[in-house]
């Protein structure tokens, strides 16, 4: 075995270890945090009015929040546009990544192929816009701190390296796929020998580890926000909201 082979083997071991660790941290961390939200009671009815009167209505309100960001739209149109495009592009790009995780690849993922570049670029541009906005407005500059920049830079790097390995310094897709399917089936497969791809992978794994402990938990928090998910039922007979907390 040449020295380079040894190096690649070591790198492979490192990435395989990191990938499993990151997946564990991400899944366990996320579940643990979500369970924390779920388990924590709300001592008082807390709906923001005007509010839906029924549980169904409240679910719709939350669904609306998750998909359309109506409050943001009311608050700041530019921010809304930036944030919505950012998230929509992110979802599209993530969805497209299914082609690396599935075999055979579902048809719909393949149909996306022609517009994939567009979403990738859109995501990067939106991230840049959000970054600029943080620095450019005195109000957001004041409230922004290291974690806020860190997360945007990290996402930007993920996007940039991802676009590069897909459209410029191509990585061998067959290698990527066999590596990932290897991880998923617990077989040891060497990492693709492509430094830029490894960088892309590295940033993603860091992101996964960081996720449950960061403001990225807004992705879960949005579902558990009492001001949004509680219907306003204070005057409905038989719907007395009982305080689940023994002693506050």
């Amino acid at each position, binding site marked *: 075995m040449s020295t380079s082979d040894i190096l690649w083997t070591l790198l492979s071991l490192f990435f395989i270890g990191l990938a499993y660790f990151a997946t564990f941290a991400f899944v366990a961390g996320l579940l643990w945090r979500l369970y924390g939200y779920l388990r924590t009671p709300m001592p008082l009815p807390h709906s923001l009015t005007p*509010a839906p009167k029924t549980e169904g209505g409240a679910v719709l309100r939350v669904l609306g929040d998750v998909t359309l960001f109506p409050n943001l739209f009311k608050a700041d149109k530019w921010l809304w546009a930036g944030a919505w495009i950012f998230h929509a592009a992110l979802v599209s790009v993530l969805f497209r990544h299914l082609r690396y995780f599935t075999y055979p690849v579902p048809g719909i993922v393949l149909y996306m192929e022609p517009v994939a570049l567009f979403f990738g670029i859109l995501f990067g541009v939106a991230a840049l816009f959000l970054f600029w906005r943080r620095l450019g407005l005195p109000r957001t500059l004041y409230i922004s701190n290291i974690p806020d920049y860190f997360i945007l830079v990290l996402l930007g790097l993920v996007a940039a390296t991802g676009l590069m390995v897909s459209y410029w310094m191509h990585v061998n897709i067959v290698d990527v796929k066999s590596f990932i399917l290897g991880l998923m089936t617990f077989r040891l497969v060497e990492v693709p020998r492509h430094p830029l791809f490894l960088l892309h992978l590295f940033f993603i794994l860091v992101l996964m580890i960081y996720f449950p402990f960061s403001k990225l938990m807004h992705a879960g928090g949005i579902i558990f926000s009492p001001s949004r998910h509680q219907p306003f039922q*204070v005057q409905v007979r038989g719907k007395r909201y009982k305080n689940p907390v023994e002693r*506050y």
Partner: protein
Amino acid sequence: MAKFDETPIIKDPAVKGELRPPKIREHASAEVKCHPSKPKDTAAINLPSELVPDWQERAIARFGELLDKNQALRVYMDACVRCGACTDKCQFFLGTGDPQNFPVARAELMRKVYRRYFTPAGLVPGLGDAADFDEEMLQKWYTYFYQCSECRRCSVFCPYGIDTAEITAAAREIMASIGISTKYVTEVVAKVYETGNNLGIPPLAWIDNSEFLAEDMEEITGLPIQFPVDEEGADILLIPPSADNFANTDTMIGYGKLFHFLGVSWTTSTYCNEAGNFGLFLNFENLQKVNQRMLEAGRQLGAKTIIWGECGHAWRAGILTPTLSGSMDDFDPPYPYHISQYIVDMFRKGAFEGHIDKSANDEFLVTYHDPCNSARAGNLLDEPREIIRNTCNRFVEMPRNTIRENTFCCGAGGGLLTDELMPIRMAGGKPRAEAVKYTQANYLATVCAICKAQLPELMKYWEVPVQVGGVIDLLANSLKLK
């Protein structure tokens, strides 16, 4: 009085009242603080009267308890992405320019401490944006969590509905538990236990006032309009804000005329003649204790229905009654019942048919100020408007961005209605004053006793010539009594 930037905030009121946020001025309102509580008051309401020796540990322990008991607090500690959408939404930032009054910056005071003691970020405070709960932080808490009126306006614009009011309430709860609270709030709560109301009116004076009002009415109208007190077996127990029997007597007269007209038996109670609940601004224990008095009063007198009078935060706490104080099934539904809802129900039943003379209010161009509490925490948006439309010919709305769920706090809610906070109150009320000025109304109607105390001073300060009064006052004006 500290001067803040006085350039108008509302850009183009005619369109919808878009806002022009002021320039940031760091520490602009850092020196405006409440007076600390007096030991005699804190003793009366079961709180330590001075900073306890091991305050840091106790505060963090209490914080941890609350995180386990309050979903809102737990979620809101994590969910904020610091997008900044709320930064120009709080009237206290708009008025003072102090960036610590951004809802997000206010909440971050608590989040920094949260991250320090409850998340891995606490291991690397600088990188993780975490901070110790030290003397300096405590001072910031004391200042800025008492420059928030818990109005929930920020919540309307936050993509996750993060309610800074909930965070402020938790911070106050923690501070109260280690011996830090404000004179105004603790004094008021102590007075409730002593006299039954926030103003400290003793029972005899309450009875006197009520009799005096009845005599006055007899003289003016020639009708036996009564203001019964402690009348057992009355159908309705009215719990007004005590200020109605004292400062806003027109509102009290309104209740009297209304019930006289409808011919129902009603009463107030000297055990509980205060709908307002300052426990809401202090801690859960007192919120609950004050609330329990209302049901107790209702049961003592054997009332069939309890009606809450015109007060914003009273209604916010009032709707919590079945949760705080147990089932209300022994009273007639609907409950809790607000006076505005009651009046609207009567209108719909046709009780006033042919007895309303709208032209009696023609001298008024009326506009309506949504109290933050009744609008955003009590769902009371249409009822007051329906009453006004039914009793007045001339009604105008303020710009869209400043009413209904977007309403601005008068500037003195949340336990801020105290003299030493005057600079904050006048600054915080600025958007409201501007919006009223735009309408050129000469009658500013509202359904909140705190607003009714704050708004006249505010309008004088910002030179808006308008009279402030209740919604029920307008009804009483237009009602052809029999």
